[in-house]
């Protein structure tokens, strides 16, 4: 569904991405894995079309992203950023309804259909009870779930998530992982998840793309890619990769610096 071809990007003199190519098949959850500074967030912004690449291109269902209007892109791809900071006192419902923007005309107001969708996604993310609350007063985990609901309200085919669990505590991390898994199962949403948390990626993603210093180290099915050799190459850390029967997915246990 998403095809990234030979993308290269530099901030001024600093090259970030060199010749990155991979595909995101429809209905799959793909993890972009790599240490901080490897270019994951930049890559995500390029895929979402908010940053134009210096070279290469991104296609959504065969259509180049650069040929689409911002609204058209937003109807196909929704982004969940790492953190959402609201300058003004928006309520949870306000935030979610903003997700309907790409579907509305220039001066159109949200109608009952839009409100129904908002209710639906709040329900799906377990945040319906928070609807009248001020966004700024929520906990980190609650905020992330609301932002995911907002992204779902965009009714897009694909969801891009940038470090969705980075600032969350353990319980909230598990909640998000469970939520994304459930959403994928119920709606078949294609997802691209940027993360440096190996265990989270292993629990959620069926495919992984490993990125180090702006280059793809390895890509493929999680079971094939997540190996001690690759972990060492990616993080300079000697680790054990073991299938955990209780968690029902691969887990990575760091042992020592490589």
């Amino acid at each position, binding site marked *: 569904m998403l095809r990234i071809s030979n993308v290269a990007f530099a901030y001024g003199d600093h090259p970030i991405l060199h010749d990155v190519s991979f595909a995101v098949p429809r209905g799959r959850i793909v993890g972009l894995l790599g240490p901080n500074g490897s270019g994951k967030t930049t890559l995500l*912004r390029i895929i*979402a*079309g*908010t*940053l134009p690449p210096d070279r290469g291109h991104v296609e959504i269902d065969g259509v180049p992203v650069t040929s689409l*209007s*911002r*609204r*058209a*892109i*937003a*109807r196909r*791809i*929704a*982004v969940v*950023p790492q953190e*959402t*900071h*609201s*300058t*003004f*006192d*928006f*309520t949870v419902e*306000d*935030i979610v309804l*903003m*997700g309907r*923007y*790409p579907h*509305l005309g*220039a*001066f159109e*107001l949200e109608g009952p259909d839009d409100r129904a969708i908002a209710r639906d996604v709040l329900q799906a993310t377990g945040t319906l009870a928070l609807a009248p609350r001020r966004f700024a007063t929520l906990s980190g985990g609650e905020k992330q779930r609301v932002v995911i609901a907002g992204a779902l309200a*965009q009714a897009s085919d694909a969801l891009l998530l940038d470090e969705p669990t980075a600032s969350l505590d353990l319980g909230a991390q598990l909640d998000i992982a469970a939520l994304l898994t459930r959403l994928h199962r119920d709606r078949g949403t294609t997802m691209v998840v940027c993360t440096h948390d190996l265990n989270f990626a292993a629990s959620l993603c069926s495919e992984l793309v490993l990125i180090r210093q702006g280059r793809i180290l390895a890509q493929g099915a999680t079971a094939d890619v997540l190996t001690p050799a690759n972990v060492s190459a990616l993080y300079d850390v000697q680790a054990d990769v073991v299938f955990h029967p209780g968690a029902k997915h691969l887990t990575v246990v760091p042992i020592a610096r490589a």
Partner: protein
Amino acid sequence: MTISAFGALLAAVCLLAPLVGSTHISLARAFSRSVPFADNVDAQIFFIARLPRVIGAALVGAGLAAAGVVFQALLRNPLAAPETLGVSIGASVGAVVAITLLPAFSIGGISAVPVASFTGSLGALAIVYGLSAARRRGMSSTVLLLGGVVLTSFLGAILTLIQYLSDFTQTFRTVRWLMGSLDVGSYPPIVAALVPLAIAGVGYAMLPRALDLMSLGPDAAAARGVDVVRAERVALVSASLSTGAAVSLAGPIGFIGIVVPHLVRLMVGADHRLVLPASALFGAAFLIGCDLIARTAFAPLELPVGIVTAMIGGPFFLWLLFRRTR
């Protein structure tokens, strides 16, 4: 409160304000057709002294309040104001240059000072716009803020320099102008101010939902389909035109741009589709009210209206800050 409630408030204030003043006038006589206008003192007080003043206050109040809303969203900073990016002080520099250096002229009933003042605001806008357009990926709010603060200081120094170099009487006249005055006294300056305000209004009409989204961050807005670069430019130009028109009409009047948006948000919530028009309406009513107090509280003397807006706005703003930090 709904938009129509704000509209009703403004209509009521507009109807009431010209009737009240330090002098008692007879409305019947003011509208009487039997007395020729040239002799009709009540009519002249109503139509020359008070009505342009009320209309001027409405335009300035609406212009500054709306600009405040837009700047706060554009800079993602609830403390931003029309003065933040230097457009207001650019207008002041233009006025001071006219008072000190330019020979007196007038075009169609508008004297040199408002014209030069508006030109000054356009100059400041050009600098800020150039600064922001230099980045191909849209404005960083930090860069804008920093640039605005520096430009404000720089222009402030230029202002002081011009005052210092001018002779004593010119300095006194510039100080007088900088106090702000809503005593417009005629209609041509109001009509002239309507042109940039109308252009700003067109921009404002396109912005509200985009402002909501932009206040979450430029990436978040772009991801939801907002053309961020275009929206930022429309916001910057509209709010600057609005500010420039207001300051060149009445001189710099503080606090409206900062206080009214927050007051209105307390009443209608954060949705800019409500906050922007409501702020314009409330700003207009607020300034008409402040001007009413300014010209009647110490009759026969008149206070500069900027004092009244500051005396009401200042304590309120402090209270707001305390409330937020608790």
